[in-house]
Structure formats: structure tokens, C-alpha cells
């Protein structure tokens, strides 16, 4: 394990920012998200490590609005212009393991063997992830209950594991990419590896047999109790690291246009609106049920991993303070 005094972190980030396009967690006027480190240099936003960011690093790989290709009509013919790939490599610094697990979930969806998503794949290949062990979780965190090890990268996403050891930071290469990147850095000195002491999480439960339990709860009255308070806004799905639904639409300017991929949410009515006016999920109950089941049951059945990584963002930001853990505990207790 290699060590770095906490005070020298800025220097390290400067180096990274020179070699790569460095993205770090920042706070900007109340909104915390991942942004280019140049913003911290300009003093526009503040470096923010003391908690997980509200808008998850999903935006790095699946931006909220992204052009897939540009098309224009020349006379009667149509010309398509692909979007350029990333110019240079990126480093994503400070990702906690709930988010790395979330990216692993997204990989299951977007890096499918037969139909890998080119733009997603391009970003994943060109990004080196510095995962940060999470010492003091927020009151809304419950990643351990969802089987996530806050200290060790147990998935293929993290390239370097960073530990906050009180006065120093510990760096441990996990993947080849990570090792190459660390070698390129100076100022790190070798030492015996040790682990940070991590505070326990306030919420804890065993979600092991959750999917089985949920299998026959499709018509359970519990849904009324939870769904009635939901407003069907898109907050939870947009800030959730694992929600990955998107809508394809275009944006025209006269005879040229862009084919856009933008986030969408199953909570919106228009999401399942069909031609002719029929909507298979007309009300709140169906939509909340669908979201919970997709996260806790359907994804497991397909990919044997839960689509909820216990980051607790939805608990913090839901306008009506819906609490998924209360739901899970109630299901477990059934």
C-alpha cells in the first residue's frame, strides 16, 4: 500500500488533472455531484469529501442528456454523423463502494455481450476509478445491509482503492489500469498496509431472502400503504445510482437535428403511456410497486445482484420522505 499525507492530496490531484481529465466530488450552490477538478481550481465549486454526493457518478457514464448522433438532410438524402469518442482518459476520484457497486449493476445492463452500448463502453474503458473506503456513513446509508463491503472493492469497477487513514491516505492498486496510473504518480511512499476503522451504519438488516419474499407479494396491501404518499416525481429515480432508464427523442433545428438519449423515470406517467391512450401503470401504486420490485426482485432474478446498493439518496431527497429500508424491514418481518 502506498501512503500520502492528507495535506498533499491537492498536489496529487493536480498531477492527476495534468495527466488525465480528473473528476472529483464537488459542492456547487447546494448541489453535490462529480465535476471536473478545474472547477475546484477556479474556485467555482468546493471539493466535497465528507459525504456521498447527491447526483451519483452515474452521470459520468450515462449523462442526463447525451447526443447519440447528429443527422442532417441534404436535399432528399440523410447524412448521419457519429458523436466523437472521449478525447483523453479520465480519472474518477472519490467514488464510494455503493456507487462502484451501482456502476457494476449498470455494466450488467449496458455492457451486455451481444449488444454493448458503444458510448457507455467508451466511457467505462477510458475511466480509471479511485474508489474511496467510506469511514463515516450518513444516517441514511444501508449499503452493508445490501451486502456491500465498504472497505474493499469486491467488483470490477474500482481500479485503485483509497483509504482515509486519519492523517494519511492509503492507495492500493486493484486493477492493471490502476497500477499503471499509480506508477505514473510521484509523492507516494510505500508502507505496510492497514485498514481504516469504519463507523457502523445505523440501519442494518439482512436482505438475503428479500427477492423470494417479494415473489408472491404482487397484490399485497403493503403497496397501498407506501404508494399513497408518493408524488410520482422523478427525484428518486434521477438521483439513484442504479436507475438507468432512458428515453430516445430528437431535437431539431430546421433540417439538422440530434438524436438525444435523456434520462427517464418509471414514475412519470408518460413513461408507460401507449398510443391509443392506454397506460399499463396508470396510478401511483403500480409505479411504486414496479420501482421497488425492479430494484429488489426482478434485477436479482436476472443478474443475481440487487439493483439497490443502499446509498440512501432516495431516503434523503424524497419530497415525502418515503423510506425504502422501512419497506424492506417490513417485508422481511412478514
Amino acid at each position: 500500500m502506498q501512503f500520502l499525507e492528507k495535506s498533499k492530496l491537492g498536489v496529487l490531484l493536480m498531477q492527476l488533472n495534468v495527466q488525465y481529465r480528473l473528476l472529483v466530488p464537488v459542492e456547487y450552490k447546494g448541489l453535490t455531484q462529480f465535476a471536473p477538478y478545474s472547477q475546484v481550481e477556479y474556485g467555482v465549486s468546493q471539493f466535497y469529501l465528507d459525504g456521498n454526493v447527491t447526483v451519483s457518478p452515474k452521470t459520468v457514464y450515462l449523462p442526463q442528456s447525451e447526443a447519440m448522433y447528429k443527422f442532417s438532410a441534404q436535399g432528399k438524402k440523410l447524412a448521419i454523423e457519429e458523436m466523437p469518442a472521449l478525447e483523453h482518459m479520465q480519472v474518477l476520484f472519490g467514488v464510494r463502494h455503493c456507487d462502484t457497486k451501482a456502476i457494476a449493476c449498470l455494466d450488467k445492463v449496458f455492457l451486455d455481450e451481444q449488444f454493448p452500448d458503444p458510448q457507455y463502453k467508451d466511457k467505462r474503458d477510458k475511466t480509471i476509478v479511485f474508489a474511496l473506503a467510506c469511514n463515516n456513513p450518513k444516517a441514511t446509508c444501508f449499503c452493508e445491509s445490501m451486502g456491500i463491503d465498504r472497505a474493499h472493492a469486491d467488483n470490477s469497477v474500482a481500479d485503485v482503492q483509497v483509504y482515509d487513514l486519519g492523517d494519511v491516505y492509503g492507495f492500493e492498486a486493484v486493477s492493471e489500469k490502476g497500477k499503471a496510473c499509480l506508477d505514473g504518480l510521484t509523492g507516494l511512499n510505500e508502507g505496510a498496509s492497514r485498514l481504516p476503522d469504519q463507523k457502523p451504519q445505523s440501519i442494518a438488516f439482512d436482505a438475503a431472502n428479500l427477492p423470494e419474499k417479494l415473489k408472491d407479494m404482487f397484490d399485497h396491501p403493503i403497496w397501498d400503504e407506501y404508494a399513497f404518499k408518493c408524488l410520482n416525481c422523478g427525484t428518486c429515480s434521477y438521483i439513484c445510482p442504479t436507475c438507468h432508464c432512458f428515453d430516445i427523442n430528437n431535437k431539431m433545428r430546421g433540417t439538422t437535428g440530434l438524436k438525444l438519449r435523456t434520462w427517464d423515470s418509471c414514475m412519470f406517467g408518460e413513461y408507460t403511456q401507449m398510443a391509443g391512450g392506454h397506460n399499463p401503470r396508470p396510478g401511483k401504486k403500480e409505479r411504486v410497486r414496479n420501482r421497488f420490485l425492479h430494484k429488489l426482485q426482478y434485477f436479482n432474478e436476472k443478474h443475481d445482484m440487487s439493483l439497490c446498493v443502499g446509498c440512501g439518496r432516495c431516503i434523503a431527497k424524497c419530497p415525502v420522505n418515503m423510506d425504502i429500508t422501512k419497506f424492506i424491514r417490513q417485508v422481511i418481518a412478514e
Partner: protein
Amino acid sequence: MERVGVFICHCGSNIGAVVDCARVAESVKDYPGVAFSTDYKYMCSEPGQEMIQNAIREHNLNRVVVASCSPRMHEKTFRACVAKAGLNEYMFEMANIREHCSWVHAGRNEEATEKAIDLVKMAISKVCNNEVLMKGHAPVTKRALVVGGGIAGIQCALDIANNGYQVDILERTPSIGGKMSQIDKTFPTIDCSACILTPKMVEASSHPNIKLITFAELEKVDGYVGNFEVTIRSKARSVDMSKCTGCGTCMTKCPGKADDEFNMNLRKRTAIYTPFPQAIPNKPVIDRESCLKFKSRKEGKDVCGVCAKLCPAGAIDYEQQDELFTERYGAIVMATGYEQFDHSIYGEYGYGKYPDVISGLHFERLVNASGPTQGHIVRPSDHKEPKTVVMVKCVGSRDPEHGKSYCSRTCCMYTAKQATMIRDHCPDTKVYVFYMDVRTPGKLYDEFYNRTREEYGVEYIRGRVSKIYQDGETLRVKGEDTLLGRQIEIDADMVILANAMIPNPDSERMAQIVGIGYDKDGWFTESHPKLGPVETHTAGVFLAGACQGPKDIPDSVAQAGAAAVKVCALLSKDQLETEPTVSKVDNKLCSGCGLCVPVCPYKAISLETIQERVAGKTIERQVANINGSLCQGCGACTVTCRSGAANLKHFTNAQILAEVDALCQTIL
């Protein structure tokens, strides 16, 4: 799939001289939706319209854009043209590249062409969002209303009635007849005004299809073409029309005195009066300002009552009040006539200070046999026959500074007529006429004017009068004679001013009530100065006579006939085609909030309860419903409606957004 045909018109050189029409046609050839694009010298001509119709068939176009003049001019023409080729007339848009482009950007050809291309792109983007619309139908009330009982109103009512339709004449004063009843003789034939007017009045009053509503005013007009609901205020006459026989004894003994407006206040009249002997209806009215009983009632006393005592038919009813009643009409003709310009603002002409300075209408009353002087031309001051009379023309007309900027058209002729009549009545009276120009724009007009000068020896002096003042017995008129280039002073016994014509002082209020336009001087605005002089922009409202602009009796009568034909054309239909460009509510989007209901000027929107199946259950909920025939398509509700449920057909949100996007400046 939109297949738009674009046709750029040169309009001879009107557009072609400034806009490169070929380039415009060429540059929109590949615009989304365009299947065919060409230009031609005269799109509105016969061959031009045929070209459109052939193109529609050949290229099976389902939308057409014509870039030419203002849609206010030829939209109807081109809609009919595309309809003939089997295309729905609302799948058509126009781009105005003449009034809004070539005519106002002369010499800037390059930029004008760029602008034309933009305007055509806007029209194409809009037409791509047009939908097929069918004209609606609304019932027609087979009854017309003529507002104003002058010669124009009477003639129009007669022409309508003779076509078999019911018509009401609404007159503000106690009797029909209007200004013409005050006039003694009419030019150019000098036949007696009353002789040609009173038969018409009698014919109107006795015509089975005509109802006279006199001493009443227009209060409120609702509804729309074919279905006007007019509220009329019938002012209290204090005489029961059904009982009164018109014997006139009450008028003989009435102690109340008031200025006789009909005789231009040259004499007094009784409080209970008929305006003039041949008045129709020949039933008196009590003027409550000058009637002793009503005046005393104000101070809590109750005196006089002579007329009630004398009246053999017991028709006097002091308790009568104004009453409002509503009537339904299919068409309205405005014939509110003109008023004389108040020349007292010309202090230098001494009006009001010198009694012998009078206006044209005053003279008409002097020379009229039933007038205050029984037809003798005498000076108001001392009732002596004037030896020298000076007539001053263009008092108030053609004077943008203090008066009106326009020429009042009739003064030259009636001044010549009055001069002839003076010379006729008092052969040895000298008559001078100060003029700027003499305008005799009619049949036998100029001959009449020449006869006035040659046979009747009237002295025409080309020049303006600067000042008139009392100089002892006579009026000293100071002016100039521009032809001789010298100042001139005349001692006149009487001066007659030829005042300008202005619209009825109440014209602006009435225009707002009926919902038609008026110009800066208050004349009603016709739909087109040349091609639509008797129509207005409001369907179903027509104009007749001087209310549309200064004009003499022949023109007024001609216009009255024209307006009558338009009314009859309208009333001849059992059903009226209503424009389909009205607002419509999409029930799926409407949440029944009712914010649009108070916004509609025509009260066309109401909340209706509908039944719907939601999640397997039939429920009832309220949605806004727009009555297509009442709605006139203003669009106020479409902006109040937050969810876009109310949308105005032919001007939908999508169409307007498409037009805005067509101008897009941003780059991707």
C-alpha cells in the same frame, strides 16, 4: 406525409422588382415537407390559379403555400382556388412578401429576398401542422337592424324590406329624417329636400316589414353574424304612443320653452314638441329638461300639467321611464350619419360673438319655408334682408392644425347651391365666396357651379378669410385674393361658414358597442377602402351613408342600397357558414379547472359533465366545453389554459411554435 406546394408570386413588379422570386422558390425546394416549388408572375390571376390546381393534381400535394400579398386581401381567393382542386381550403397558408417585404424594403433586394425566404419557411412550417377543417353552420335570424334614421338608414331599410325581410330602424331623435329633413333644397337639381324625403319617410313608416324604434339608443350588442342580440334603451317619451293621435293641441299651450335644436336654436320650441311638422312618427315628446313639471319635481313641487289636461286622448304619461329590451337580428347596418364641425374654435371668425355669422345648416333653416323665418332670408340680428353676403369655405376642413385634415366633399356644392338660392330670393344681394379650390365631383355638379357664377353672378374669390369682426352695422371680412395678389376687405351683412363634416359625436362609443373599427377622426372603418366600402371587419355589420366618411345624398343613397344587398345576401341563407377556426378543448388534457370560462368574450365556454372509464370504472368529471358557433376564435382561452387542452384550430400551439422555430438562429 406532408407534400407542400410552394408558389411565389411576382405580383407583376410589386414583388418581383425587389424580391428574387426564382431564388426564393429554389431555396425552399428542399425544405422539409416541400414537394413542389415554383414562382409565377401573377399567382392570383386565372392562369396562376390554374397552375396551382394542376400542380396539386400532378404532384398530389396535400398542402399549399402562396407567397404574395396580404392574406387580408387574397386569402379567400386562394382558398377557393385550392378548394376547386379538391384540397381542403384550410390546408393553405400565405406568406406576405409584398406589404410586409417588397413594398417596405425598396432597394434592399438582397436582404428583402432573405426575408422573403424566412417568411416562406415560416408559412411552410405552419402549413405542415395544419389540419383539415370544415366550415360549421349557424342559424340566421331573418331580421335586420338599421341604426340611424337618416336618408341612408331609411333607404337601406326600404331596400331590405322590399326584399321581404323584417327590418327595424333605430333612431335616437323623436323622428326619422336625419340631417336631410333640416335641409331646404338639394343640389344639383335644387329640388326641395322635404319633397323627396318625406315620401320615403312615409313609405318607411307604413311599410309592413319596417318597424320604427324612435327616441331610442343602442345599449349593448352581443352575439355574432346571423345571431346578434341587441339591447335597446327606449328613452321615456312621456307620451303613450298607442293613445296619441298626433293632433298637436298639447304643443299649442305648453308654457315650457327650450332652444329648437332642429332649427339650429334660431327660435324657441315648446317643452312638448315634434322636431318638425312632417315628423314621423308625428307624435310629440316631452323634453324633461325644459318641461316645467319635471323641473319643479326636482325641487319637490309639482306644477303645470297643462298638456295632460288638454290631451283629448289622455296620452300624456309623466311616470314613463326608460326601458331596456332585447331583440335578435341577423345583420346590423350602421347609418348614424354626420354632424356639423363646431367652428367656435375659430375665435377669429367671431362665431357666437356676432349673431350674423352663421353656418350652412343655419342658412338652410332660414331659407326653409317651415323654418323660423318662413323662408325669408334675413339677418338673425335685425331680421333685415342682407345686401352683401360673404360665404367662407373649408371652415374646419383641410386644416390639420385646428380642424380636420380631410376635405368634407359636400361643402363646395352646398355653398354654390346656397349662393344660388340667395341670388334667387334677393336678386340685388351681392354674394362673395372665399374658396381654396372648388370641387364638383359629380354628375351635373360642375355645370351647376358654372351656372352659379355666370347666371347668378356669384363672386368667387380665391383666398382665405383671416378675420371677421363687427364694424358698426356690418361685418368687416378681411381676406386675400391670391389671384390678384392683394388683400381684400368686404363689409358684409351676413357671413355663412361652410363647416366641415364630422361623424356623429357618439360614433366611437357605438363602434365599441358593435365591435367595429373607427379611424382617428371617428369615421367607421370599412373592410377595404376600394373593394369593401359598405362592409366592416366584423362579419354581419355593414355601413351606409356619411358615418363611413363625408359624402353627399346621392352617394349615401347608393351606399344604402349596396349595404341592403349585402344584408339580403346574408339573410337569404337559412344557415350561415361559420369559420371553423375556433377553439376546441381536448377532454384528455382538460382538468375542468374552469379558468378559461370567464376569459371568453363571447361566453362560449361552459363546464360540462362527461362520463369516462378510468381504471375499469365509469366516472363523471367536469371538462370545459366550447360552443363552436359562439366562439369567434380570439384565442384568449388557449393562453389561460395551462395544460394546452384548449387549442385554437388553424392557429394551434404547434403551428405557432413551428413558425417561431422556422426563424431559428441557434446552431447545433
